[in-house]
């Protein structure tokens, strides 16, 4: 449907405006200054299509000021080429007449034009012809229509929008994990924990490696120690060998020397006759043998005594392992005792803290059973009940506040209801309102008349100046009438006979005066002035009747009267509102009681949970989380006390076990040192153990020596017997050997030789006695000599060997100390946290991190799913209209903004736009610029209009949409609207010359220019002569510039 011709007879300030041959133009631009009537033209177009709204002339906002009936006509052309004429006029009632091209007319009344189809007046006003002052947004009724017809009812009220739901999911995911290392996420906290624990792990791994190293080092040092022990034993053996073998060697050498001297003195040992000497020697041998045997017996007895250990030494040796263990645990025992004391002190401190906290919560101290009850208290249930109590604590206060507000509202309603006037007053009010309305109309008419009179006077003066006419023809007419009267008067003074002359003369003069009076210039002015004076008088009477002062405005009183009448009309509504308010107050009062009961019940539930404990009454007076907090702290303190007690008992038990073992050992040894604890006496036991070990070594040595000594004793006894036999035989032989018969001569010689021999034998015997193993020693010495070993050590050599032994012993002691230190370090490391335990905690953290990551990814994926669903939903359900709107928006913004979507949330429909270079949607509101917002709404309106129309596309009337657009976007709009104009008629109303010129130059739009708004009339010059109102055509033509613009004289038609 296109408008081909418009003719506005009177509509608002547009009077007699006309335009023709419009249907062939795709795009019409109506340009006019402010208040030139652009919006009035928009309203006229809507009125042509849909009728007058409101349908009462007195209330129509576009009723002309001059009181003329608003109306006009249009010729419309349909798509099939047919056309019809439509006239609408608002007199007493709205009138409409539809005349077809065949000349057949039909009454339309105030009904919409049938060709408007499904588009109602409201939709047309909101979409096709939006007002300039409401560019942003559609009315909710229009949105409902759009949703119902175009968006398929997709805005389900029970659903959140995708943006809202996805934002919630993203926020939850961001709390769990973020890519940024600075984000304080749960994953980040776990990572930090992991990092800290990783250091512990590295330390534990290093400790384990260190323990393995220690084991290796200890094995190496033990091997080294064994080597040194062997070397020490060898050195000691060499010294011992030297000491053991050297006397034997020397003894043997001495014996050999004696034998050599005896042989030198007596060549042959056949001087048996020297029996005395020999006998003497033999007797000496016998005595020496006896002495040696006795000495040996003494030595044997000494050794036998050494082989027997004392009972105490035996007992100490039997407990060797236990003594070593106790000595080794001595340091640990002292640490445990100190640790027990620390734990006792710490536990006492916790006990004091617990009692102090108890005093804040409970009325009595908690005994064991109550502490057990406290420890087993179900915190989840208590927390739930306390939370419910706290949550409900504000309920009564809120309900009381609600009750107070309800009562205030009841009072307000009561006052409103009491303010309703009575029926008598209502009748008077109606009369007053009618009178005021009449007065308003009269005063409006008087104002209009006064204005016309002033204007006419001004024109009259101007005309009088131009025509140089006498100021007043009325006086001339009055003179003529007086002359006519005088002529008639002559009949009374004697000219009655000449009546045939006088009467026609007087009639002629009167006719001439009448003619003069009839053609006077100021006639209209005088007529209007009279009407104005009459109207003014009527107004004053009405004001007096209404009790209004002359300068009081009627509109205010009329408004008050109407409000009062509206107040009367609202009596049922106020009555219903009062009943509802009282009902609300009653409900609120009931809720107060109910909330208080609920609160009391919740408090009782909390008290029930803690009934087994002597809770302070004051703690149940005011709800709060601090009670739960105090109980949790008490439970924590109780747990800590339990832990401390357990640890103290465990350590004390270990110490006690050690003490018991030490005591048992002392009892077994029957030698507990007085004044010391068994553990402290362990050092003494250690010394005793060393002594017992030394005694055992001596006994073992003696045991080894005794068999040899006994053998040697038997040999000495045999030697003694031989010596005695030799003495007897020698005496006989000496007596025989004496050459002079006296054995004394040879005896002296032989005695000397035999003495030497005896000395040799004695030396040899002594050697055997002293060294029973002299033969082995001799053989050993021989072997040593064969090896090149020097047995006859010098003092320097002995010193060197002793130094070597000292060094070896020192080295061994150092090695033992090192071994002990390594063992202590190993034991310390073994007591620390094992690597597997740290790894276990790490694994738990790792599991938690994986869980957090999984939850984050699930939330992110769910967010992505919702976004994809949203995208698909929009593609499926919002595609036709929003795709068109998005294309329009892209055209308008030069492709910068490419998408336009709609969301309905909480009953509110909102528009979102998307930039080409961004992913997020922006709500079409601040801070987006006003120009962009108006462009988006223009795009949406154009698209909606195309979708909403019926068979006939309705004209699109755009009221100055490009107000604050830049030139580029105005040019884009021109292109878009020109394209749209090929499918439907587009009427662009603008107050900007540049916009009109751009549309005209770029898309060849037809530009209609409205005349400028009338300026305020100049103050009339009372001295100026009254003239008639005349306007030259040239002046009027200068004001219009287009051929189709209504002629000035048409616009000035009354």
């Amino acid at each position, binding site marked *: 449907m296109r408008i081909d011709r418009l003719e506005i007879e009177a509509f608002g300030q547009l009077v007699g405006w006309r335009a023709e041959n419009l249907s062939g133009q795709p795009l019409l631009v109506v340009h006019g200054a402010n208040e030139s009537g652009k919006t009035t033209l928009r309203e006229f177009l809507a009125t042509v299509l849909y009728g007058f709204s409101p349908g009462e002339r007195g209330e129509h906002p576009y009723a002309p000021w001059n009181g003329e009936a608003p109306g006009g006509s249009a010729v419309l052309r349909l798509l099939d080429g047919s056309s019809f004429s439509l006239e609408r006029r608002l007199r007493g009632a709205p009138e409409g007449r539809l005349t077809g091209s065949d000349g057949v007319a039909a009454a339309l009344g105030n009904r919409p034009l049938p060709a408007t189809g499904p588009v109602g007046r409201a939709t047309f006003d909101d979409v096709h012809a939006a007002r300039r002052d409401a560019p942003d947004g559609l009315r909710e009724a229009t949105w409902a229509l759009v949703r119902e017809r175009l968006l398929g009812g*997709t805005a389900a009220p029970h659903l959140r929008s995708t943006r809202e739901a996805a934002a919630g999911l993203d926020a939850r995911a961001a709390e769990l994990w973020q890519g940024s290392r600075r984000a304080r996420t749960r994953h980040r906290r776990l990572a930090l924990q992991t990092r800290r624990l990783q250091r512990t792990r590295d330390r534990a791994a290093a400790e*384990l490696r260190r323990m393995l190293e220690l084991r290796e080092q200890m094995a190496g040092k033990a091997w080294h120690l064994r080597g040194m022990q062997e070397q020490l034993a060898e050195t000691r053996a060499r010294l011992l060998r030297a000491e053991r073998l050297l006397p034997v060697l020397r003894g043997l050498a001495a014996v050999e020397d004696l034998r050599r001297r005896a042989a030198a003195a007596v060549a042959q040992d056949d001087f048996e006759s020297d029996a005395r000497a020999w006998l003497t020697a033999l007797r000496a041998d016998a005595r020496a043998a006896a002495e040696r045997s006795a000495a040996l017996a003494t030595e044997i007895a000494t050794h036998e005594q050494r082989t027997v250990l004392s009972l105490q030494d035996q007992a100490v040796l039997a407990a060797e392992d236990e003594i070593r263990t106790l000595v080794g645990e001595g340091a640990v025992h002292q640490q445990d005792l100190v640790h027990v004391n620390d734990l006792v002190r710490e536990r006492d401190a916790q006990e004091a803290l617990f009692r102090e906290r108890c005093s804040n919560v409970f009325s009595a101290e908690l005994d064991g059973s109550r502490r057990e009850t406290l420890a087993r208290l179900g915190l989840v249930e208590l927390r739930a009940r306390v939370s419910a109590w706290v949550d409900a604590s504000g309920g009564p206060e809120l309900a009381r506040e609600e009750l107070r507000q309800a009562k205030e509202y009841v009072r307000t309603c009561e006052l409103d209801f009491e303010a309703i006037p009575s029926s008598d007053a209502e009748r008077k009010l109606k009369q007053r309102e009618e009178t005021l309305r009449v007065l308003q109309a009269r005063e409006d008419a008087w104002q209009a008349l006064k204005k016309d009179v002033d204007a006419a006077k001004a024109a009259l003066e101007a005309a009088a100046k131009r025509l140089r006419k006498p100021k007043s023809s009325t006086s001339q007419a009055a003179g003529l009438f007086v002359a006519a009267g005088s002529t008639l008067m002559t009949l009374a003074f004697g000219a009655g006979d000449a009546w045939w002359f006088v009467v026609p003369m007087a009639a002629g003069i009167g006719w001439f005066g009448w003619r003069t009076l009839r053609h006077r210039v100021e006639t209209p002015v005088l007529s209007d002035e009279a009407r104005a004076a009459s109207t003014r008088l009527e107004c004053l009477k009405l004001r007096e009747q209404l009790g209004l002062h002359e300068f009081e405005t009627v509109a205010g009183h009329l408004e008050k009267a109407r409000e009062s009448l509206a107040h009367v009309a609202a009596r049922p509504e106020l009555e219903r509102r009062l009943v509802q308010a009282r009902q609300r107050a009653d409900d609120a009062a009931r809720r107060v009681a109910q909330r208080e009961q609920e609160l009391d019940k919740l408090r009782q539930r909390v008290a029930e949970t803690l009934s087994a404990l002597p809770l302070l009454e004051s703690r149940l007076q005011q709800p709060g989380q601090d009670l739960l907090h105090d109980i949790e702290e008490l439970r924590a303190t109780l747990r800590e006390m339990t832990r401390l007690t357990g640890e103290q008992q465990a350590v004390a038990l270990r110490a006690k076990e050690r003490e018991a073992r030490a005591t048992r050992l002392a009892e077994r040894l029957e030698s507990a040192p007085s004044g010391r604890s068994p553990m402290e006496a362990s050092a003494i036991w250690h010394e005793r153990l060393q002594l017992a070990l030394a005694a055992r070594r001596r006994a073992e040595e003696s045991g080894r020596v005794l068999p040899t000594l006994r053998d040697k004793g038997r040999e000495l006894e045999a030697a003694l017997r031989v010596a005695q036999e030799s003495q007897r035989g020698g005496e006989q032989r000496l007596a025989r050997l004496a050459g002079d018969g006296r054995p004394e001569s040879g005896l002296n010689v032989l005695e000397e030789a035999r003495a030497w021999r005896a000395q040799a034998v004695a030396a040899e015997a002594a050697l055997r006695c002293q060294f029973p193993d002299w033969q082995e020693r001799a053989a050993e010495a021989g072997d040593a000599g064969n090896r090149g070993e020097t047995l006859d050590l010098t003092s320097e050599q002995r010193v060197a060997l002793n130094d070597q032994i000292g060094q070896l012993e020192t080295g061994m002691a150092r090695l033992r100390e090192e071994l002990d230190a390594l063992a202590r370090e190993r034991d310390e490391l073994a007591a620390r946290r094992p690597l597997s335990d740290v790894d276990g905690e790490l694994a738990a953290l790792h599991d938690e991190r994986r869980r*957090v990551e999984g939850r984050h*990814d699930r939330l992110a*994926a769910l967010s992505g799913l919702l976004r994809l*669903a949203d995208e698909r939903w929009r593609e499926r359900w919002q595609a036709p209209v929003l795709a068109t709107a998005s294309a329009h928006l892209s055209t308008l913004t030069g492709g910068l903004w490419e998408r336009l979507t709609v969301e309905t949330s909480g009953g509110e429909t909102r528009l979102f736009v998307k930039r080409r270079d961004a992913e997020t949607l922006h709500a079409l509101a601040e801070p987006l610029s006003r120009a962009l917002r108006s462009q988006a709404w223009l795009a949406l309106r154009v698209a909606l209009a195309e979708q909403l129309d019926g068979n006939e596309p309705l004209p699109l009337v755009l009221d100055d949409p490009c107000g604050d657009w830049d030139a580029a976007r105005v040019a884009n709009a021109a292109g878009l609207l020109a394209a749209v104009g090929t499918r439907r008629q587009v009427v662009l109303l603008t107050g900007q010359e540049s916009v009109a010129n751009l549309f005209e130059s770029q898309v060849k739009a037809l530009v209609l220019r409205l005349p400028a708004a009338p300026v305020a009339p100049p103050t009339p010059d009372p001295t100026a002569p009254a003239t008639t109102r005349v306007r030259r055509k040239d002046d009027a033509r200068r004001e219009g510039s287009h051929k189709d613009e209504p002629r000035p004289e048409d616009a000035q038609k009354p």
Partner: protein
Amino acid sequence: MTASHDEDSAGPAPTLRFVHCSDLHLDAPFAAADAAVRGRLAEEARATLRRLCELCLAERPAALLIAGDLFDDERLSLSTEELLVSELSRVAQAGVPVVLACGNHDNAAPGGRCSALAWPEGVHVAGSEPLTVDLRDAEGRTVGRVVAVGHGSAHETASRLSALPAAEEGVPSVVVLHGHVQGARGAFRHEPLSPCGPEDFAAAGHRYWALGHVHERQQVGRRPAAHYPGSLLARGFDEPGARGALLVTLPPKGEARVEFRPLSLLRFEMPALPGLPAVRDLTELRAACMAAFEALREQDGRPDALWMLRFELSGPCAAAADCQRDELLDELGDELTAALSSFGVLGVQVRDAGVTRPVDLAPHRGQPHLLGEALAVAAALQDDAVLDRVLPATLAGAAPGQDKRAYVRGLLADIEHAAAEALLREVRP
């Protein structure tokens, strides 16, 4: 390498009985936040080793075959090492030879703990080179032969089967191997080290394959029999059920009889909560958890069992708002641990694994609104193209090189209810 060989054995081979176990992982970490629980679990691992040795001393089998991963190489403490040596020494001294095929965790790499360990006499350790041990009865007759091959490093990806000697006629032989059988249940959780398969089992002529590495007890070959005994001790919640060793009887002819002997008291279990949708608050949830544990105890029937429990909350639940708060669930876990400690429960975890408010999705499916579209997208997630559009740009938990689609699909269980929960303003059950 042959440890011993009886040249003059003759006559039909008698029945061969041996104990087969694997994957004890001594001193491997237990993922638990509580230090006391970790200590208790580590002690249970050592106790399980003692019970294994007690079983051998009581049953007097011909051998104790350990198919690898007896301990964790880098974490084995000295005290545990001493215990291991003393216990195995006890078994070996009782005349039960012990054959250990090193696994990837206790591999025989030079300088490793396995190589440095002073194994007692009678314990035969097989590294990457095959080891043959003849088993004899009290009279000295050869009753069977064990061929073992282990891992020489932590990443033995190549198969060592070609190095195994063939079976000898008339001598029942058993292969001890720490290997990965592709397709075995739970095999995906383990590295594919030393791969083998049923076709390999039949080729060499051995009667029984004593396998290790996969922690789930199962039979992976019938002729010849090939068994995984499962881990001797559960390591986590992915290893539920009873754990122990196999007592295998191998008759001269016919199939092997395998008897499972539970040895570990420790149970990692995730009991189901069938009544979760009806749970209205945490008190009821606590009761439901205790009831589920009671049902589990009745099934198991072992009074001295030690329990590690995890309740995973998923699906619709009326108390979803509370069940989605980790701090409340942690407190509930602590309370359950305290309440059930007298029943041998060491720790209880209660976790939100996707619990949602109860929503009937049927009325929303196919509806022309966003939720209907979201449900349609969720149903189409098996399509890779759809999933790719849902995939987040950055995944927190996907390892480099991991299949992101498979990873995300694993996270999207019950995603329809989650989407409904996110979109619905007020859920109407």
